């Protein structure tokens, strides 16, 4: 090993250590930010060392250098611009977009290397096996993540899209992919094998993602994140680069764990989510806009009175709050109440919002103190002493049906909102949540429903609460 290569290899090792330590530090809020920074330092080191080795070893053409630099500048510019300007509510689709480009890059590397081999040459197993996996996983991730991005952004319908013969088509596509797999490993290099593998995998990515409902999308994004990691690791095998293998495997494993934990928090299995046809986003397919007789409707004025004379208020935020981008209004209302000596806390369900932990990010964005955000167990111990629970755009996570057997959400841990003295629910309509079942909480005697968009409704409530507090 030459001196330079030794230095490069050691630097890659240092980079890998940075990723592992960085991920480890991201387990607690206190060290999370430094963890991510440590990981980025490792990344910077890996990129710089790669450039140095490229400068010394490669006899690259000027055109190659120019195109590489332009490509990197465009990519960095676009990535940083999107990352800086994205609304916190749109975070999930951006993460999904980054999965897509990562998978796409891995597939492009595989394509490059496969095509570099002379046509008709037979390939060593050590190359053919990772290269075809790289192409398949990378392409599936690319198209699947783009569909997921579209669904989360509302550009593709969030409802599960199913059609007759979908299963048959899926099976056919899988067969074609398997055929391409066999062709790559046991037959000589052929451009058409590559084209078929890529096209079939792209189609499979789309077919896999469209039947999955918007509310389940976060789990899918997390799964595709793990896929991208594996595709990158395979690309590492293809070009014999250890830092790609290590980082890719790390993300593949970490992403898998995260996916399993997210699914567990929703009381679903990953297989069940991928099977699809279940999650329907925030407006259920079986919904009805009719208000049943036993539901009590209320006005902003009435909610204002209740809040102004309460001692302990619990805010229960959900998907509707994220969708309406009403986090600023929530914080304003909470501040108004705390300034007048009323205790305000937030009860945050693990899967509230658009993805696990998303609600905490949104509330942190508007400077809600960390100690006011109560996690499930702590929140549940507080509901009995709560005067008013203000449920904003949350549904299934408060549904007492979860305590009964044989319902779609049986066994899911819920927030015991029904134990508080009075409950106000801000919701656009009586539509069901993604589980597609009615919520008996809404017809509870202690519950009053305030039908409104979260943002507009909260603005009205802030105005009326102010009036009563000023009296």
């Amino acid at each position, binding site marked *: 090993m030459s001196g330079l290569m030794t230095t490069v290899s050691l630097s890659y090792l240092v*980079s890998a250590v940075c990723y*592992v330590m*960085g*991920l480890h530090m*991201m*387990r607690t*809020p206190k060290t*999370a930010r430094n963890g991510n920074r440590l*990981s*980025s330092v490792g*990344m910077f080191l890996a*990129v710089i060392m790669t450039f140095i080795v490229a400068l010394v070893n*490669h006899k690259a053409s000027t055109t*190659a250098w120019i*195109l*590489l630099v332009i*490509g*990197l500048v*465009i*990519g960095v510019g676009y*990535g*940083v611009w*999107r990352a800086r300007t994205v609304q916190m509510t749109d975070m999930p689709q951006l993460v999904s977009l*980054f999965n897509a*480009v990562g998978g796409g*890059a*891995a597939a*492009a*590397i595989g394509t*490059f*290397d496969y095509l570099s081999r002379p046509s008709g040459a037979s390939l060593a197993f*050590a190359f053919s096996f990772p290269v075809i996996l790289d192409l398949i996983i990378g392409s599936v991730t690319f198209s699947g993540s783009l569909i997921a991005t579209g669904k989360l952004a509302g550009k593709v319908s969030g409802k599960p899209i199913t059609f007759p013969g979908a299963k048959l088509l899926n099976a056919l596509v899988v067969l074609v992919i398997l055929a391409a797999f066999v062709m790559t490993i046991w037959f000589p290099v052929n451009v058409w094998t590559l084209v078929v593998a890529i096209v079939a995998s792209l189609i499979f990515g789309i077919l896999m993602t469209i039947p999955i409902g918007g509310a389940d999308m976060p789990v899918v*994004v997390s799964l595709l*994140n793990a896929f991208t990691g594996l595709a*990158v690791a395979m*690309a590492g*095998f293809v070009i*014999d680069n250890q830092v*790609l293998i*290590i*980082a*890719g*495997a*790390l993300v*593949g*494993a*970490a992403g898998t*764990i*995260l996916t399993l*934990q997210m699914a567990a928090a929703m009381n679903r299995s990953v297989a069940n989510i991928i099977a699809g046809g279940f999650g329907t986003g925030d407006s259920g397919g079986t919904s009805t806009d009719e208000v049943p007789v036993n539901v009590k409707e209320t006005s902003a004025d009435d909610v204002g009175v209740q809040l102004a004379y309460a001692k302990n208020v619990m805010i229960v935020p959900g998907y509707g709050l994220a969708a309406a981008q009403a986090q600023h209004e929530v914080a304003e209302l909470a501040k108004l109440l705390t300034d007048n000596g009323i205790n305000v806390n937030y009860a945050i369900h693990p*899967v509230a919002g658009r*993805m696990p*932990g998303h609600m*905490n*990010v949104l509330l*942190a*964005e508007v400077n809600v*103190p*960390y*100690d006011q955000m109560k996690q499930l167990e702590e929140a549940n111990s507080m509901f009995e002493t709560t005067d008013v629970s203000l449920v904003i755009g949350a549904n299934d996570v408060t549904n007492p049906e979860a305590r009964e057997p044989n319902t779609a959400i049986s066994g899911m841990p819920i927030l015991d909102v029904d134990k508080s003295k009075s409950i106000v629910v801000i919701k656009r309509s009586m539509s069901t949540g993604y589980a597609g079942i009615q919520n008996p909480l809404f017809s509870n005697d202690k519950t009053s429903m305030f039908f409104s968009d979260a943002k507009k409704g909260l603005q009205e409530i802030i105005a009326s609460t102010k009036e009563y507090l000023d009296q």
Partner: protein
Amino acid sequence: MSQELFTNLAIFVLSLLVGFEVISKIPSTLHTPMMSGANAIHGVVVVGSILVALEANSPLFYTIAFIAAVLGAINVAGGYVVTDRMLEMFSKPKKDNNNKGGEQ
């Protein structure tokens, strides 16, 4: 099996195990930033993009390499910046009742 493949395979398997071990039990609060942070790490693919780009020598390969460079760079740069932005919100002063103000 060549020595090279064996070494790479060992690295791959051990890294998988480290990945499983290093992030068991994450509080749900951090699921989103964690996913985003892992997302940034697979941006390492840009290293591969750089290495293949310099071997390009015909229009077809220039095109593929260029695509790989753009996509990889979006992943790595965007991934780290957006994760940092998210985590910045978590590390804001927790109890600023004492009017410290800060530089927000």
